[in-house]
Each structure stands twice: as C-alpha cells, then as structure tokens.
C-alpha cells in the first residue's frame, strides 16, 4: 500500500485531518500508474520477444498504418480518466487550502534561515510552532527577504512565503506530537538548515499556556538553553562557535574581546553590545563584515536574549 495513517512505503504518517484525503487521491493515481505502466511495458516486452528478427532478410508480417477505433479508444479513455483526476484533485486542493471559519491564526514569517511564529496574543517563537490538536489552525505566511516555502510533509501542506504579500495555509492536527517543517523554496546557503518543528499539544495543555513562558526546558541550564536557541533561531547560519569566519564574526572568544567597528570607536564586547547587536544589528558593524544581519526585535524576548548572551560567554 502506498499510504496509511501510520505512513507507508511512499508517504509519511498522516498528521492532519486533510492528509487522508490527499493520500486517497495519491493511491488512486498510483494504481492507475502501475496499471498503465504494466500494460505499456508489458506490450513492449511481449512485441520485442515475439517479433524479434531471426534472420537478416526477415520482413514485418504486418504493415497496418492505423486503426481508427483503436486510436479513438486510446485518446478518449485517458482523456476521461484525466478529467476525473483533475476534478478530484481540485476538490482535494480546496479542502487542503481553504481554512474553515474561526480557525486559530498564526502569522508565519520566513527569513534567511529561520521560521518565526507570531500568535494572536503576541507570543513569538522561532523554530517551534505550538498548536492545539483537533482545532483548525490557519497560517498567514510572509517573508522578510526572499521567497521561502513552508512545507509540513505529515500534514501534506506547502505554501510559499512571499515578501511583500500574505499567503495562507491551514491544517488541523489529529493528535499531540511533533512534525517536521522544511523550507522548500531555494533561499541560499543554509536553505537546507531552514527547519522548524510543529509541536502539537493536547487542547488542555495548549490552553494552559505553559509553552508561552520563556524559560529553559526542565533540567537545562540557562547557557545550554542559549545554545539550543543558537541552533534554532538562526544564529548558527552566520556565526560559528569554532572561530571560523562565516557571514558574521565567530562567537568563539567573542565576549570580553575588543572589536574594531566600521567608522566608530572600537568597543569592548559586553552584555549591552551583544543585546544591541541582536536588536539593532546595523548600529555597529565589525570591520571586515557586511551589514547582513536582520533584526530580532519582536522575536526574542529578554529571557531568550539573556540565555544567548550566557551561551556566548561560555565560548572561550
């Protein structure tokens, strides 16, 4: 079987209510594919074996040039089949893309190379989209720089996030769990690292709102949480922790170092400088680097900024 709610050889597990419908259509096309492939390849192999030339002067036994009935059949039968598939496909597409009324709305913003999620109450998370199970969720997508595309295989949804406009997608997760998000519109160096997770919580757990509180997960130190954020929110794409030069300065040995600033006096790297660089990156550009960093204003709260600073302090 090509699919199934637990996933099959071809398709991942069905994490959303709409996934089953997509998979039913996928299966139909799949078996139609298998049928026609066997028919055509079978005929080719059979004819090649049956009519193989055995002597150099052997001629063809038939020179039939056409057969109207046969040609009409193989024009109209496929035509009818594809019209059925077309109509079925369009209906499935509408189910997949038109969000029901009253859906919980999250704003999704793509930027090189991370995903930010803004909830209706203003809570912002990067790299993790928390949603309730069994409730429709509508995504309002946009981009801060180039085109990205938000793809959740388990939900069978994908939608481009385009700068300068909004696009939408929706899903209703079937149960609590974790689902992978990929960026599927090529966006440069770390396109393949532009990942995120959809974290589906039970409705009670979601409504309790503990996930909104900005603090390290249980059993994790603040500095370790900072390291975790470093991986998730996008710092990693441009700042190494081993001293190698990427788009921006390496974090290794950064804290307490004196940095030369373009057109300004040198600064000693301390908590205030780091905070400023995260919130207003263009204020002081280190010599030898381009002003390439986007602002994280509105995306990282104080607790997270503190955690990242703590993490940078540990990188001696």
């Amino acid at each position: 079987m090509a699919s199934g709610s637990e996933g099959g050889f071809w398709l991942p597990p069905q994490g959303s209510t709409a996934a089953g419908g997509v998979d039913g259509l996928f299966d139909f096309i799949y078996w139609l594919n298998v049928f026609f492939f066997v028919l055509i390849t079978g005929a080719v192999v059979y004819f090649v074996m049956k009519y193989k030339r055995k002597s150099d002067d052997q001629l063809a036994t038939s020179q039939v040039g056409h057969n109207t009935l046969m040609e009409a059949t193989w024009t109209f039968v496929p035509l009818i089949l594809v019209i059925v598939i077309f109509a079925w496909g369009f209906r499935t597409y509408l189910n997949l893309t038109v969000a029901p009324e009253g859906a919980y709305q999250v704003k999704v913003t793509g930027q090189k190379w991370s995903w930010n999620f803004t909830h209706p109450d203003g809570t912002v998370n990067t790299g993790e989209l928390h949603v309730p199970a069994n409730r429709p969720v509508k995504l309002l997508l946009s981009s801060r720089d180039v085109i990205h595309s938000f793809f959740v295989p388990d939900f069978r949804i994908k939608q481009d996030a385009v700068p300068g406009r909004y696009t939408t997608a929706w899903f209703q997760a079937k149960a609590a769990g974790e689902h992978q998000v990929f960026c599927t519109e090529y966006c440069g160096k770390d396109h393949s690292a532009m990942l995120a997770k959809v974290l589906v919580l039970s409705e009670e757990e979601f409504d309790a709102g503990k996930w909104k509180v900005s603090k390290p997960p249980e059993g994790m130190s603040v500095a370790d949480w900072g390291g975790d954020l470093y991986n998730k929110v996008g710092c990693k794409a441009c700042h190494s922790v081993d001293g190698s030069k990427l788009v921006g300065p390496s974090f290794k040995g950064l804290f307490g170092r004196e940095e030369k600033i373009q057109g300004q006096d040198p600064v000693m790297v301390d908590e205030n400088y780091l905070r400023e660089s995260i919130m207003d990156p263009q204020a002081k550009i280190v010599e030898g680097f381009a002003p390439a960093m986007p602002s994280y204003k509105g995306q990282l709260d104080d607790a997270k900024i503190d955690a990242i600073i703590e993490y940078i302090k540990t990188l001696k």
Partner: protein
Amino acid sequence: MNATTTQAAVDHADAPYEVDYLNCKKGIRHWLITVDHKRIGVMYLWSVIASFLLGGVLALLIRAELWGPGETIMGPDTYNRVFTLHGLAMVFLFIIPGIPAAFGNFVLPLMLGAKDVAFPRLNLASFYVYVVGSVMALWAIIAGGVDTGWTFYTPYSTGVSGSVMMMTLAAFVLGFSSIFTGLNFIVTVHKMRAPGMTWDRLPLAVWAFYATAIIQVMATPVLGITLLLLAMERALGVGIFDPQLGGDPVLFQHFFWFYSHPAVYVMILPGMGVMSELITTFARKTIFGYRAIALSSIAIAVISFLVWGHHMFVSGQSAYAGMIFSFLTFLVAIPSAIKVLNWVATLYGGSISLETPMLYAIWFLILFTIGGLTGIFLGTMGTDVHLHDTYFVVAHFHYVMMGGTVMAFFGALHYWWPKMFGRMYNEKLAKIAAWLVFIGFNITFFTQFVLGSRGMPRRYYDYLPEFETLHKISTSGTWFLGVAVLMMIGYLFSSLKKGEKAPANPWGARSLEWSIQSPPIEHNFHEIPTVVEGPYEYPKAGAKA
C-alpha cells in the same frame, strides 16, 4: 544516378566513393567559415557533447556530496553553485540545442532532399552566437559563480552576489542561437522540400523539428525579455520583480515559466521525432498513426504555451488560475500519450532488431512512460501541494528529460553516427554501455521518487538522517552512468580511426538520408530526388515487392 524514390538504395557497395563533406575542404579555416549544414551540425555535436560532459561531471559531484548528511566533499556555497551550473549547462548548453542543432542540422536537409538549409549563413551565425553565449556562461562560472538555481527566482537572484548578471546575459544570448535555428528550420521545411515531398510524406522527425522550431521562435523572446528585465533591475534598480522596489516577485515566475514550460517541449519534441525514426527502422514497419503523431506534435506546440502556471500551484497564485492551468496540463498530456501508444503499436507484427539505437528507443518507451505517468501526480493540484519542490519532481523531470530526451539523443548518436562519420562503432561495447545506462539511470532516479514523496525537499545540501539510505542508493546509480558514458566516448572515438567503413544504409532505413553515401558528399545530392512515397513504406512479408 537517378534517385526517383525514397527507397534508400538497397546496396551502395558498387557505387564509387566520392569525396565526402569531411574531406572536401580540409583545414580548420574551412571548418570555421563553413556554411555546410552538415559541418555546422558536427561542430554543434562536439559542443553539446562537451556541455553534456561538463553537466555530467557536475551531476556526479552533486550526488557524491549527497552520499551522507553534512559536508562530504564540498561546503554549502560550492554545492549551491554546482547544482545551479549542472542545471544551466544541461538545459541551456546541452538539451535545448542538443538534438535540433546537432542532429537536426545534419539530417533535416537530407531528409527533405535539399542541398542545405534555407539560410546557411544564419545557420553558421547561430553556432557562433551559441559559442559566445557558452563562453559568457563559462566566464560567469569562473568569475564568481552563480548559486540561484537555473530558474533565477527573484528576489533571491536580484540580491545575491556572484555573477548572476553575466549568466543571465549568457542565457539571453543563447536564446538568440535557438531562435536562429528555429527560424531556419521553419523556412527550410516550407520552401526546400524536394519535388513530391508532400507534408504527409515528411519523416516524423521533420514534423517534430518543425513543431520545435515554432516553439523556439515564439517562446524564446519572452525569456530574452524576462532576463533583460532582471538585468535592468540588478543594474539600474528599476523595480520590476523586487518587492522592496515596488516590484512583484511572482511576476518573474509567470514570465519565466511562460518561456520555460514550452521550452520543456523544445527539449522533448525532437527526441520524440527521433523515436519515430528508430522504431520504424528497427522494426521494419510503417509507422502506426502517422497523422496522429504528426498532429500531436503541433498540438503539443500550441497547448504547451498555456500550462505554465502548473509550476506555481503553491506560489500564492489564485485557486481558479491554478484550476485552469491544471486542466490544460492534463490536456497537453494526451498528445504525448498518443505518441507512446502509437510507437508501441508500431512494434506489432514487425521484424524487430535490438541494435544499439533500438535499445535506446526501448529505454525511451519505458522511462518516458514512467516520467509521463508520474507527471499526473504533479498536474493534480491536491497531490502537487505535497510533492512540489521535493525530490519527486526531480525524479519526474529526469525521467522525462534524461529518460526521454537523453535516451533519444544517445539513440540518434548511434543511429546517425555511421552517416555522419562513415564508420561503424563496436556494437558489443555499445550494447553493454546501453544496459549500464538503463540500470544506472533507474537506480539513481527511481529512489528519488520515494525520497520526494516521503518529504525530502530538492536543492538541499544537507538532509535528515532518515533519508540517508535512499540517498546512498541514488548516488551509487550515478557510477554506472559515469562508466557507461566513458565507454561511449571510448568506442565512438576509436571508431573514427579503426571502425569498419559504414555502408550507405547500414540499418535498412528508408528515409532520404540513407539513399546517399556515408558520409555524404558536400552538396548532399547530385540531383534533387523526386519523391514518390512516404518515408516508412517497408515491404510486408509474403507480398510481391
């Protein structure tokens, strides 16, 4: 000699050898200023083969990098440049000019019974424009690299560093080469047919070249305009596609695919034309459904202009635009299906010989069928949302482009090689290579269908551990392909010196190019032949000749 029929001379063994087009005017100077369509075809052939090898080496590097997650042999920036150049080299330098400019130039006038194309000088100009465009593309690679993907999507392409401008202009220049060739073919088919060569006696390869030429002439200017707008935005900051300047990034995709979807048919139609020649020759059969095949080429040429939006189902395009594009996409699938079924029916009752060109024709039938059928998943909106921009799409278009066009290119290469160079290659080695191509191709690309439907996005430098096994299998398939192509280079080049002399008509084919000596004389025909029958009038067993 009196050539009054299309029946290729049965035996040319007695005919005295005459100085052929390769030997008539020796020296590099005569090649560089030649207006002989055959020499231009040969120069194109070497150029597109060189481009194919470049693109092929890049493909091997891509797959080697994807052997494991993380860095294997190169970093992300290099990888992004390598996959971009693989696409650009294969699309613009190899597959678009491939069959029409190399084989089309060589055989089209011969098939029509003409002494040359309508505009021989324009033909040479087309080659030089191609060379200039290729040099610009190479310069862009050396000067800084391009990492936008062959699709140049904005605003990424307008913002990144690197030599995107140069590459864009290279593609613009290459477009003109394509237009020149197309224009030449259209006029040649209309005006240069031998007496008696009516439209329904044209070999189907000619019909396919003709349909291709129409698309080239009509669609390529749009690419030129688009790339020029892109260059203007980068150079002058005019806001056309960049939202920061007030432009619309999705507009670029509309422009780009308005050209690039018809261009997909520029890539496949000539291959379909070659298929009709190979299947009939090696089955000694008249083609089944001549009219259906000829007209389906024209139908494809027309409908292909109206389906571009199926590349954009998840771009934010309206659902109703998507609906119309999806419907038209299914319509354009029908003529392709008709062709495949006609070729299969042609095999019925034939006298089938599995020489190397025919092996490639069989591979085409099998692989193109898979490519076409899997296209249904992508034309269907409900399933495309999941599969768009994953490896499923990569697998699909490689089955169509490599499984279709490249198989036809290899078939054409082995079929017309004796005519072009007057030598036979080593058949045994050629068959081994053909089998390696088939096996390696399926290992490489079938796994990619599975990768894609399971959610592996395309253009990824790095991937999650769950995809590793399938990536390893895919990569291992490319080694078979690499070995096969090396073998091909070996036996084809050695045939030029050591190969047996080719007769006029080694395969017993019946179109006009086989009625003259191999290689042909400079002016093709001493006397323009008069044609009295179609190109596939093979005799039937038991019937009186």
